């Protein structure tokens, strides 16, 4: 039912989603932790700015990212290799676009951690880093899983940014969502349905155990 190209696109999608989530957690966890401990309007501004990628249509965001990361963009001007039309560029684009979905739940999760536990950890000799890893992360586990799932699923379905920034290069930047779009555009609805179904099934297979795991960690 699925052609080799579709399978390849599926592989790129899963890889992209995985790398994006890992990257988002790597940046998002410290950022959210930092923000959760801050107060005042400066923080509110930063949080609002993080949510901003959402308010632009993805294609338009992709367009701006293309201008930023492309051959003629400012990054290229300072000598960095252009990221547009490469897997790396897709990762950057997806991370920017999915950032709020990951960081926002993390901030909320970190804010909910009982300050007394952090105080206790400090009296037991745990420094700030240690407290982050040994108290904050386990304490926000459920929020981390929520953020990771939202980021993962959103990256899988992402389309506008990826298409614009990645250029749909087979094997590198053509992801499943683009492949589905192409099938629809070429009026090959059967393939579109099949690929959609596979994407949905794979997502279920990945998400259900994740949610079961999240529950287990609570009781």
């Amino acid at each position, binding site marked *: 039912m699925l052609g080799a190209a579709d399978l390849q696109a599926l592989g790129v999608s899963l890889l992209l989603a995985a790398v994006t989530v890992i990257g988002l957690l790597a940046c998002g966890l410290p950022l959210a932790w930092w923000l959760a401990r801050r107060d005042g309007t400066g923080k509110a501004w930063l949080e609002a700015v993080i949510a901003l990628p959402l308010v632009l249509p993805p294609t338009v965001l992709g367009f701006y990212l*293309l201008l930023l990361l492309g051959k003629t963009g400012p990054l290229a001007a300072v000598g960095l290799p252009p990221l547009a039309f490469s897997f790396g560029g897709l990762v950057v684009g997806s991370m920017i676009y999915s950032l709020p979905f990951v960081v926002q739940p993390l901030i909320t999760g970190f804010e909910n951690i009982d300050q007394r536990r952090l105080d206790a950890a400090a009296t037991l000799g745990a420094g700030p880093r240690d407290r982050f890893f040994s108290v904050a992360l386990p304490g926000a586990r459920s929020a981390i899983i929520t953020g990771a799932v939202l980021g993962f699923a959103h990256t899988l379905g992402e389309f506008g940014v990826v298409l614009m920034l990645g*250029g749909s290069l*087979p094997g590198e930047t053509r992801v499943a969502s683009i492949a589905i779009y192409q099938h629809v555009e*070429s*009026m090959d609805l059967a393939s579109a349905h099949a690929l959609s179904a596979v994407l949905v099934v794979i997502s279920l297979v990945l998400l259900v155990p994740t949610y079961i795991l999240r529950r287990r960690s609570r009781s």
Partner: protein
Amino acid sequence: APNDAPAPPARIAVAANFAATASALRDAHESAGGGRIDVILGSTGSLHAQITAGAPFDAFLAADTARPDRLVAEHLATAESRFVYAIGRLVLWSPHIDLVDPAGDVLRGEGFTHLAIADPKTAPYGAAAHAYLEGAGLLGTVAARLVTGQSVAQAYQYTASGNADLGFVAVSQVAGRGSHFIIPDDSHAPLEQAAVLLTDHPDAQAFLHFIRHDPDARAIIAAHGYGLPNDETRPDARRR
């Protein structure tokens, strides 16, 4: 950097409305012994922006002539490679067998609630349909019932799914089903779709040559409902 790896397949950026035809052409080209071709779909506007930003495409089959011309002007494509590979034909179509009369008078009546059209601002087929409606003095009567799709493909999806009773779509999309009225070519600017070569990738050159000159290729294009330019024989007014 020189290496022994086989050259990557040629990447041809194709306007989404030409997707099905392009696949057929690619298959024909490959079975005729041509090199491997990757078809990359997008809206003409997006593809143009991507090419401008350095996208590694080897050729561009646009849905209009404006973007290829622009690329030529921007020195991203050579003027010699530009040619019109197909001429779109607009049709008023409905999946219902008896809704659209051969004269298109249905537009003057109240027999429909939604009329699908591609976005006149971004899609050539939309602009053509808009021009037809304007010329026929129908714009006022149908304006409130127009539903606008992002592309002609979406206008087709609106109509084919029955959500819009009828729509302005490409002849290439409808393949004789339902009822239709072919919009006269002279009621709007010609829906010329131009191609340009962006690199000197041999397979891309070969593919464009195939589309331009090969009789089989031209037959495939025609079979998908496009008109064909007279090519070499017909002088192109817009050419420099």
